[in-house]
């Protein structure tokens, strides 16, 4: 018995002593060796730029692949990537890209125009079932090929003129075309590698494993420890390798925000993906230098099912929208630096500032409700407010429920559903009012305004307006930026008059960042091109 106890005491202390050995944290070692440690949300589905859809995947792929253009680290405007420059025809339909002759794959092969052509062919192949294939639909014949209506890929608007000249023909001028190209769906894959492992038309093959993957980005895939971390290492073949200062990046899939925050505090991470809401105030007070709140091009809003009474009346919808005190919600509840949303497109999206804005307070709201036949909320049925199960959505719903009750004297019943059930309800219009969010894939008002086209896959409100639909077409055909934004203003006006949705707030992206991380700028899409990032011990420390 006594022996057992002395043994246990020895064991216990030996564990502590090994633990005490003057440990260097990841952050310290990282600064010394230029190794960046990042919290990255969830485990990636895959690392195939043509089949993945999530943000964590995007963060990793940005290190491994590069498109014709790449985002500028400060404001994300397109700067040369594989293409060293490009010409645009007068009518804005023909883009000619001149590829950088030094652009190489990680196995040494040159990146050619044919690589791009075949990559886009793969992206559009119906049987690959790429969820983002529609990002290419702006090109002549692309949609038809993707839907299987066209089988000859030569009729699609992609041409490899010679190994270093690539041409794209668009259906309409699509002025935001270059912004689209920074999206992974427009990045090339190494055709021989993909072919070797199951072919171009199959998804989920072994080509994305570290031992197989060939990329053309600033980093190469070194290790993929499933559910633990992904390590990428500086590529020796990347054309702009002199710009790359980081030696490695370690991506950790950390689903729990609390766990991530503790890892950051113990020096395991240079940057977190998120921060728990409850910690924002604490960091703001004690460590403002670590807390970063970036603008984020996304909107939090409520969808209204416009097919059922009394929500089919625009006046009722307007009353509901005006009865929400957004400023109070943002400052007292959310506290993450969010902005009240008075229009659907967030202000200053690529220079576009929506003029149509929600105006009027609760008095106006009561008046409208009375005009709609419900003076002081009398006779107004209880409405159901649906959100996906989550503490933060619940709090917002409760606050809005209270505001409607106080300002309009109408009752809302809160209903929460598990994520996929909620998505299904939203998709099948099995709700009255439901919470929603929309994050932009690229910086242009089009991303937001295209949602509410009649029967659009993401419309989910039952709302339809012919003028709105034709304006959307008109905008795509308009190559002059100012004139195009005028069209968007008219669309925004229709949307704000009819209000199939209630805009609530514009997202922000709060996270924690160690001061040693340099070259990291607040960008609207949470994109931070790694080739500009480096680590430097803070002189003040």
């Amino acid at each position, binding site marked *: 018995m006594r022996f057992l106890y002395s043994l246990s005491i020895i064991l216990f202390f030996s564990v502590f002593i090994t633990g005490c050995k003057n440990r260097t944290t990841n952050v310290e070692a990282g600064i010394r060796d230029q190794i960046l440690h990042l919290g990255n949300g969830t485990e990636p589905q895959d690392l195939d730029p043509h089949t993945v859809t999530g943000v964590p995947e995007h963060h990793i792929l940005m290190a491994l692949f590069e498109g014709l253009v790449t985002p500028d680290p400060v404001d994300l405007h397109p700067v040369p990537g594989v293409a060293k420059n490009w010409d645009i025809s007068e009518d804005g339909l023909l883009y000619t890209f001149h590829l950088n002759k030094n652009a190489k794959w990680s196995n040494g092969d040159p990146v050619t125009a044919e690589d791009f052509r075949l990559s886009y062919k793969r992206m559009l192949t119906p049987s690959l079932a790429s969820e983002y294939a529609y990002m290419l639909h702006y090109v002549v014949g692309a949609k038809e090929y993707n839907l299987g209506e066209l089988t000859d890929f030569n009729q699609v608007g992609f041409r490899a003129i010679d190994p270093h000249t690539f041409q794209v023909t668009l259906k309409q001028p699509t002025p935001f075309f270059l912004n689209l190209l920074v999206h992974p769906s427009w990045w090339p894959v190494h055709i021989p590698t993909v072919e070797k492992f199951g072919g171009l038309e199959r998804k989920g093959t072994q080509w994305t494993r570290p031992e197989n993957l060939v990329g053309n980005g600033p980093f190469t895939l070194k290790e993929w420890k499933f559910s633990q971390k992904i390590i990428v290492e500086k590529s020796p073949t990347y054309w702009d390798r002199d710009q790359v200062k980081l030696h490695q990046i370690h991506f950790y899939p950390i689903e729990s925000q609390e766990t991530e925050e503790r890892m950051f505090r113990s020096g395991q991470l240079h940057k977190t993906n998120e921060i728990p809401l409850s910690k924002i105030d604490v960091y703001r007070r004690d460590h403002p230098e670590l807390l970063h709140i970036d603008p984020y091009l996304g909107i939090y809003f409520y969808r209204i099912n416009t097919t059922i009474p009394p929500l089919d009346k625009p006046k009722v919808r307007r009353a509901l929208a005006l009865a929400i005190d957004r400023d109070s919600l943002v400052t007292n509840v959310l506290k993450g630096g969010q902005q009240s949303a008075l229009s659907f497109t967030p202000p200053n999206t690529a220079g576009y500032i929506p003029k149509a804005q929600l105006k009027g307070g609760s008095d106006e709201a009561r008046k409208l409700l009375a005009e709609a036949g419900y003076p002081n909320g009398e006779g107004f049925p209880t409405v159901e407010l649906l959100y996906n199960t989550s503490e933060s959505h619940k709090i917002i719903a409760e606050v809005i429920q209270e505001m409607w009750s106080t300002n309009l004297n109408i009752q809302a019943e809160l209903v929460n559903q598990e994520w996929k059930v909620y998505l299904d309800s939203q998709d099948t219009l099995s709700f009255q009012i439901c919470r929603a969010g929309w994050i932009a894939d690229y910086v242009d008002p089009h991303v937001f305004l295209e949602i509410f086209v009649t029967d659009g896959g*993401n419309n989910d409100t039952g709302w339809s307006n012919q003028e709105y639909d034709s304006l959307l077409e008109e905008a795509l055909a308009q190559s002059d930026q100012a004139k195009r934004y005028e069209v968007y203003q008219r669309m925004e006006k229709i949307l704000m008059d009819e209000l199939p949705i209630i805009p609530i707030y514009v997202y922000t992206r709060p996270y924690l960042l160690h001061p040693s991380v340099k070259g990291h700028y607040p960008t609207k899409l949470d994109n931070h091109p790694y080739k500009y990032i480096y680590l430097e011990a803070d002189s003040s420390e």
Partner: protein
Amino acid sequence: MIRYITGRIFQAIPVLLILITVTFFMLRFVPGGPFTAEKAITPEVLRNLEAHYGMDKPLLNQYLSYMGNLLFHGDFGPSFKYSNRTVNEIIAQKLPVSLELGAWSLAVALFLGLSLGILASLKPNSWLDYIPSTISMVGICLPTFVLGPLLVLFCSIKMGWFNASGWFDPIDRVLPALTLGGYYAAYIARLTRGGMREVLSQDFIRTARAKGASETRVILKHSLKGGLLPVVSFLGPAVAGIISGSFVIETIFQVPGLGREFVNSAFNRDYTLVLGTVILYATLIIVFNLLVDIVQVWLNPKLKFE
């Protein structure tokens, strides 16, 4: 005994088959599917995705081909969420981690639990009893999601002894094993104390003491075997729980085990991964219950295999 074991195995087969069938069909009737996403996909893409995974065929055909692959090839199919991995591969990578965490936790649970329990049983209603009993009561009441972060707060963030999370070096096993093991240790301590108290008050113990056997011998040789009976029956479900139910621990400590997949696959509607983990855990529970029954017969001469 062989007959008993084969009998039990034959009983388990229909249980598993029914479980697989019920799970398979229940999953399909839950709203939302593996391809339901915030940004809606077009009907054409959905059709092609379904064709890729063989979901365009009638449900019954899908069921038959799933069962066929499972029974004849041991193939759980591809994962829907992790598109370049098969369920077999995911289980092969993650199960050993869960088993390792389980083994360390079990070691902690047994070591702490038995020591505290025996200690408490020696001099009932004295400080030697109150202190271990209080510790174990606190352990039972303190959920792992409180104990875990507390340990991290003190041992990693304040003292810097360990990483806050991760599963990279051997030292990373300490905190998760202490947290998960600590919880079960508390139960084991209570059960051991109870079991030991009962045995220690019996006639044959008085006989042993009268014979002049040392206290150590009385405890280790004469009472422990009988005193452990309640612990053993608790261990069956506990071991299955330690291995499968470590979702919270795996999340707090970033342990790449199967417990997290068990829960997340259901949220992701990753049909094949849900089935894979359900089948695996069901088998584990059946096996551990069988083992416990065998050990109980061995420990308790009053029981027999029937």
